[in-house]
């Protein structure tokens, strides 16, 4: 049995941050994720590393958000980008309540290198964003930072691994072994090999987001979460020049953020008792978002919807208050109080806080293990951020179109060179596999060899393969054989993988299926059913959780 100091359960933003912190402090660490890195809640967020503007009622949280933005820009500048944001007002009452929020926000703006909140005339706002309604009477302006949430999690995991941690995906914890009131290890099911394994450690960190209550249950300790689901509608291409925030039909704030090659329209907030594995956006959620946003951006209804995504927020269990009033802070629960020493669970928190959350728990762990070690996660850069990269120089040097290099740099920073170096031995790996992004074969090969993806969906998280308007219509077909080659899959296994990936994409496309997606889907069906005959001769898939409900 393998021995560790710490076992982290959960490969989301918090879990990978904890693994990284522990590894950087010299603890022998194992991270277990039952699916892939960033496959849960963090994979359904907008990637905003919020300045905390929304949480002005909780000044300590605003302070924390602001300083964490500074840290993230310091350690991961290459995957952080800035979005200017307009908040157009149709009437004065659209101005968010709370009165002095602008002042509160502006106090901390300088450290993040953004301006204080400013007012723009309707004319100026319309020049910046002609899609705004001509009826606006004024607009607020401020700037926020966004991060690629998939890359953040992956880079944290890779950095942890570089510092000695073991990262195991597709390993589901089935038991937390407790002896005499103390954690001694975990038992887990390796879904890739089909075997059950054990690992020992005195510390287990439950960083499983909305699934935290399940892990607590396994360990026999009580844990409460207020699960709250949120939907995003993903629009094709960057149809707005800048971000737009608006008041929704029920007075909540919703947003339209340019994100990668899409625009995200989000989000809803509904208390949920559904299985977090089994969620899709509802028609009501889609309409809520479209109707609300169309008041300030009337054309949003004509925009092409590619798909939807639905995630679950693991909020702190405060009840009998509206969701908006629940603290956005986090808590680390030491289950010693429940009679299990060495088990810690996270509840609450936001993406922007993940590093801080990890620091808090790692401090506790070090204390318990008697290790005297400083936190370094806010100082050490994440892989790829060591230097600036000149896109045009790389493009010329390696004979790869500038845009392809630019996209790779936005994901990989200086590590782009490692991908491009593969081309000297394999010149034909310049082939574009996913045209939407674009992603070339070399990046897939590199990712498959260095970033432990097991499925096409995992490749998507690492490279943005298939995230464009066509949603893998063409690239899945070309990527599947590459995956099969690198992972040594049989023809049948590759087909299974292909069908599973198409089904996963379809899960998000189906709720908003309309408009141009009808013809897009006709091509998908024409290709995979009509031409490739996978509907008849392909392997039959095991049902995925979401497929159980019609």
């Amino acid at each position, binding site marked *: 049995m393998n021995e560790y100091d710490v076992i982290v359960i959960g490969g989301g933003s918090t879990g990978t941050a904890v693994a990284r912190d522990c590894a950087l402090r010299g603890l022998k660490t194992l991270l277990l994720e039952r699916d892939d890195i960033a496959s849960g809640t963090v994979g359904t967020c907008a990637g905003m590393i919020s300045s905390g503007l929304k949480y002005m009622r909780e000044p300590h949280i605003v302070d924390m958000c602001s300083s964490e933005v500074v840290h993230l820009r310091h350690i991961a500048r290459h995957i952080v980008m800035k979005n200017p944001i307009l908040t157009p007002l149709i009437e004065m009452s659209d101005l968010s309540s709370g009165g002095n929020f602008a002042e509160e926000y502006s106090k901390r703006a300088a450290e993040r290198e953004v301006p204080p909140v400013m007012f*723009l005339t309707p004319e100026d706002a319309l020049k910046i964003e*002609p899609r705004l309604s001509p009826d606006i009477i004024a607009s607020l302006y401020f*700037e926020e930072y966004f991060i690629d949430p998939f890359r953040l999690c992956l880079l944290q995991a890779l950095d942890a691994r570089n510092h000695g941690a073991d990262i195991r995906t597709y390993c589901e914890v089935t038991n937390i072994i407790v002896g005499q009131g103390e954690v001694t290890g975990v038992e887990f099911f390796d879904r890739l090999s089909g075997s059950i394994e054990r690992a020992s450690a005195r510390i287990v960190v439950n960083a499983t987001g909305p699934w935290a209550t399940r892990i607590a249950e396994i360990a026999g300790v009580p844990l409460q979460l207020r699960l709250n689901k949120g939907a995003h509608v993903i629009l094709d*291409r960057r149809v707005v020049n800048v971000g737009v925030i608006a008041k929704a039909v029920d007075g909540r704030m919703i947003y339209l953020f340019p994100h990668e090659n899409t625009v995200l329209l989000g989000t809803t907030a509904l208390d949920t008792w559904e299985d977090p594995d089994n969620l899709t956006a509802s028609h009501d959620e889609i309409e809520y978002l479209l109707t609300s946003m169309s008041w300030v951006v009337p054309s949003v209804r004509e925009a092409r919807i590619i798909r939807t995504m639905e995630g679950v927020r693991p909020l702190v269990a405060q009840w009998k208050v509206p969701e908006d009033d629940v603290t956005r802070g986090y808590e680390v629960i030491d289950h010693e109080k429940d009679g299990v020493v060495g088990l810690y669970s996270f509840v609450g928190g936001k993406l922007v806080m993940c590093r801080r959350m990890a620091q808090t728990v790692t401090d506790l762990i070090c204390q318990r293990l008697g290790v005297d070690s400083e936190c370094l996660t806010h100082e050490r850069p994440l892989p790829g951020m060591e230097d600036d990269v000149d896109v045009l120089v790389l493009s010329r040097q390696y004979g790869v179109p500038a845009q392809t290099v630019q996209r790779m740099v936005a994901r990989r920073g200086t590590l782009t060179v490692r991908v491009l170096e593969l081309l000297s031995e394999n010149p034909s790996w310049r082939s574009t596999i996913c045209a939407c992004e674009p992603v070339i074969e070399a990046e897939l090969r590199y990712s498959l060899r260095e970033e432990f993806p097991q499925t096409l969906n995992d490749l998507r998280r690492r490279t943005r393969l298939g995230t464009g308007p066509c949603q893998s*219509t063409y690239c899945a077909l070309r990527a599947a054989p590459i995956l099969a080659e690198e992972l040594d899959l049989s023809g049948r296994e590759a087909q299974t993988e292909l069908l599973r990936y198409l089904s996963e994409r379809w899960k998000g496309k189906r709720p908003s299926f309309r408009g*141009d997606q009808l*013809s897009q889907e006709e091509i998908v069906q024409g290709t995979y059913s009509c031409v490739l005959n996978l509907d008849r001769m392909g392997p039959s898939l095991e049902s995925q959780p979401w497929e159980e409900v019609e």
Partner: protein
Amino acid sequence: MSDEEEAYQFVLGTLSRERIVPYSEAELPIVKSVEQCINCGVCLNHCPLIPAVGVMRFPGPRGIAVRLSRSPPEFWTDADVIYLCTGCGTCREVCPNDVDIPSVVNMIRKRILRTMPDLVPLPLHQLQERVREYGLAFEPWEDPEDKADSRDMRLERLGLPLFEDRITDHAEVLYYPGCQAEERAQEIREAAKVILEHFRVDYTLLEEMRCCGLPLELLGDDEQAEELAGRLTEQVRSLGVEYVVTTCAGCTSRLSEIAVSHHWSAKVLHIVEYLREVIGEERVRDTLRAATGPPEAVAVHQPCHLIRHVSRNIGDDMEWLLDLIAPVTVKHSGVEDSCCGGGGLVNHHDTKTSDAVTRVNVEAIGALGVDRAVAPCPLCVAQLENAAFRAGVDMDVEDLTVLVAQYLSGE
């Protein structure tokens, strides 16, 4: 400066640092059309650039559509491909969803010119300067006498008469020769006059010919293009003409566009259309029936800016016109509607790529063994001629207007 003005200036600063050039109101329909792209790639199978230079160098129209999805901040990364597009519009024509790629190309070029002008090929900067200085895409002749000599030589070679320029302040038709026929291929300008005189058309020329603005649109200088459009609009209004007749494919499409955007009451027609629709099939038939001469076989080239940027019908009009001329037999190459490679300003900075596109035409026409190839566009004529010459293929290329004028005046 008020707080709000200051705020706006600050925002502009951020946008510029983040390289965001906001879409303007006028650009929104183009952006919208790209949303309809389903990546089917039909355009890739028809884009003339891909067989010419390969998908590695030029990712094709679908690649361009994808480019737009990274907008606004990453336009500049397209500088290595966006200047290779010849703007033929084949992609838009075969596209199941009418995605307006040619306009997307212009939009991206516009943004690169504005935000990172260093990435624009030098000859395009020079072209922009030329238009700014002379109002023409070609540097004018220094000595008017040299210009006249060149014209006379051409007319003599072609056996065309010279008519005095008509310049009046009111006419039914404005004949707009375009920069190339004005300064270089003067025989086309004169041939058009022969035709108009022959049919006793009440026409005028402009006192001073100015560029239609297409080259500026193609290099991304829409401000100067708009200036020229505004100026021409005033002239057309004050002349009170009913028709603006052109002999250049690019001018026809550009002026047709301006006519819509600037609400002209005058109709823009290529002279081929003018003959069929306004002079009338009967009159033209009666006149051309008399045309004589030794039999000749011609191959036709249909300019993209007519058939794909205006209407495929013009291809029919051309065939109709040639069919009327008894000595002429039209032979079909099968690639008459294939891009000549000269468009999109590619021939200004990358003749190799232009010629690679032209090759299809040169080879097919060369194999037909015709007496000459004709095209109703000075740009196509020059590109086909030059590319054939550079490829060592012996081929006579003539403007269709010239050919018609020859048969009319030979009568």
